């Protein structure tokens, strides 16, 4: 199948057979839910599909449905994701395995619809697992894998699958789509551990004192730790069944013997592969570690990479008043354990194009010792 990231996401969502989809339109997410509506029209999607009145309601409806113990899906972007913020916390704290696509787009004012990762980065602390994809195939594979991860008893957390506006959402690529039967084998029907059930009444969101609340948070943290183990397991099971592998928590690309390792996410990471090939051809020993999961954060793998190489981090986001968020987290991962140098670049905000040439020039500046610890590129 050759299609855009969004239609591929719709296909994956429908093949995962969610019982409830609730969504509100926003550019550039619209074609995900329009795609699902088309499958509904053709009779290929048999779940409930509700066009709710806001993203806040979309997430609320997914929470309600998930609490009933059924599989749910939604998709959003930018301001839509921000409007969900309260419900994102709720979904994660209630440990509901909702799966959502977020198409990374700029936040306004300064109204703009292009790629920028500040929308999902600012949901960092909600407790959601966050994937960042670099190809349409990875979008498909990650959506199916995410249900398996989210619904695992040791995890029971919502999952957000992020990909860049237009660069992936509206760009067609060939994607291998497995048979429904194979998907069903990989992803059996969801059997909830807890759900609203008249025979065994439970209350989600009940009042809770300090003595237990802290334990709830700790349990979420433990679930993220478990996810760290499960993500590679699920990725390997997928590889065995379908022959494709996009990496564990991060994907290493030409890192052997590298003196520098580039760290990036999303579309910039895909472009970085081209840059790495180009630089290695010219004799620079630079590899790439593409961050697939920003939450849980692949701290251990990054520390390992820093044993033999200095790191260059590219962020398509900024924590204003501090630095690029990935840059920040990478340094924290090394603290007191590694003396690798870390350089950071902030670029591509507001949809500024970042080509392999730009990536090469950021790397060269670092290698030549001319880069500041953290700088802007392409202003």
């Amino acid at each position, binding site marked *: 199948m050759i299609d855009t990231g969004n239609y591929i996401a719709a296909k994956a969502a429908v093949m995962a057979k969610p019982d409830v989809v609730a*969504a509100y*339109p*926003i*550019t550039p997410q619209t074609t995900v839910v329009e795609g699902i*509506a088309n499958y509904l029209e053709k009779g290929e999607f048999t779940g409930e599909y509700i066009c709710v*009145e*806001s993203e806040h309601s979309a997430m609320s409806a997914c929470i309600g449905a998930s609490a009933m113990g059924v599989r749910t899906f939604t998709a959003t972007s930018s*301001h839509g994701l921000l409007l969900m913020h309260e419900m994102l916390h709720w979904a994660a704290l209630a440990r509901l395995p909702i799966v959502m696509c977020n198409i990374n787009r700029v936040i306004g004012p300064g*109204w703009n619809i292009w790629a920028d990762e500040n929308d999902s980065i600012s949901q960092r602390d909600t407790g959601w697992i966050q994937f960042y994809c670099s190809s349409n195939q990875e979008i498909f594979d990650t959506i199916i894998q995410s249900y398996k991860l989210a619904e695992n008893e040791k995890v029971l957390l919502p999952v957000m699958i992020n990909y860049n506006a237009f660069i992936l959402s509206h760009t067609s690529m060939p994607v291998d789509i497995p048979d429904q039967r194979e998907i069903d084998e990989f992803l059996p029907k969801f059997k909830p551990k807890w759900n609203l059930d008249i025979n065994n009444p439970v209350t989600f969101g009940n009042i809770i004192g300090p003595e237990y609340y802290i334990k709830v948070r700790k349990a979420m943290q433990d679930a993220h730790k478990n996810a760290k183990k499960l993500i590679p397991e699920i990725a390997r099971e997928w590889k065995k069944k379908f022959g494709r592998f996009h990496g564990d928590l991060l994907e290493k690309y030409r890192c052997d013997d590298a003196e520098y390792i580039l760290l990036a996410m999303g579309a910039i990471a895909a472009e970085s592969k081209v840059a790495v090939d180009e630089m290695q051809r010219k004799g620079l020993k630079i590899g790439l570690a593409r961050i697939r999961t920003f939450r849980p954060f692949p701290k251990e793998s990054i520390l390992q990479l820093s044993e033999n190489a200095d790191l260059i981090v590219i962020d398509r986001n900024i924590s204003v008043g501090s630095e690029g968020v990935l840059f920040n987290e990478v340094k924290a991962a090394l603290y007191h354990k590694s003396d690798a140098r870390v350089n950071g670049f902030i670029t591509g905000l507001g949809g500024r194009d970042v080509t392999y040439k730009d990536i090469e020039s950021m790397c060269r500046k670092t290698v030549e010792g001319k880069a500041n610890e953290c700088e802007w590129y392409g202003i």
Partner: protein
Amino acid sequence: MGEIKTAGELNKKYLREGMWPTIFCNGCGNGVVLEYTFWALEELGLDMDKVAFASGIGCSSRLPGYINADGLHTTHGRAIAFATGLKAANPDLTVIIFTGDGDCAGIGGNHFIHAARRNIDMTVIMINNFIYGMTGGQLAPTTPIGGIATTAPYGNIEHPFDLCVVAKALGASYVARWTVSHPYQPIKSIKEGIQKKGFSYIEFLAPCPTAYGRRNKLGDIQRLWEWYDKNTILIEDYERIMKYGDEKEKERAKKMIQIGVFQDVEKPEFFTEYQKLVERLQGNTITKTSSVKSKKMVVKK
């Protein structure tokens, strides 16, 4: 009324030329509503330094960007909440809001309800094209039953909103609905709405040939305009038919969209009442800090 006689002169005065060309498609109703608003402003002779515009997100919400005046182009659905702040900071401003059916009846419904309930002095101009136009034609809370949207390719099954009825029930001071094909009534209503001290809601049925008309096979622009004429009925005619018409006429009238002035009443306005409250309370504070004697005087008042 000013010197202006032609649309060209009008545009020169009110349009922000640097923003041209607009993003609007051929046949879009948004420009027509903007033109009606300009005529209303011109006829009222308002000082544009004392007028501020606010809008949410949508094609219709782009309008303030094209006007040579202060404007807040806010987030989807929140224009009325932002405008409440505008008005609170300077109650002397004339505040006009441009919003769409999705913006106002959908995601922003709650703000609409509360501003109307408080009767805040602002004029909400809602452009109802039955669809989320800007995002490419998804189902709106105003899409008629059976209407085709990209998120409802099989035809809508949801009951649509009638915001005029809602606004009237909430006690808004002024409520009217017209279509873009009416040449004079819209200007008159916008003028009345602006002059009204209270919450004014003026809805325009306006074509979106790109995201609604095309998908619903409503035909070319001319047929789209005719559609509005054929499918709307004046409130007065509707009521006459309901009283004196035969069953067939009644059935037909019930299927049509009512247009006209739904409500036009005088009613205490929020910020005016608030000002009175402040004056009363300040009166109390003075008395508290001063002698018992003067307190009694205030009470007597």
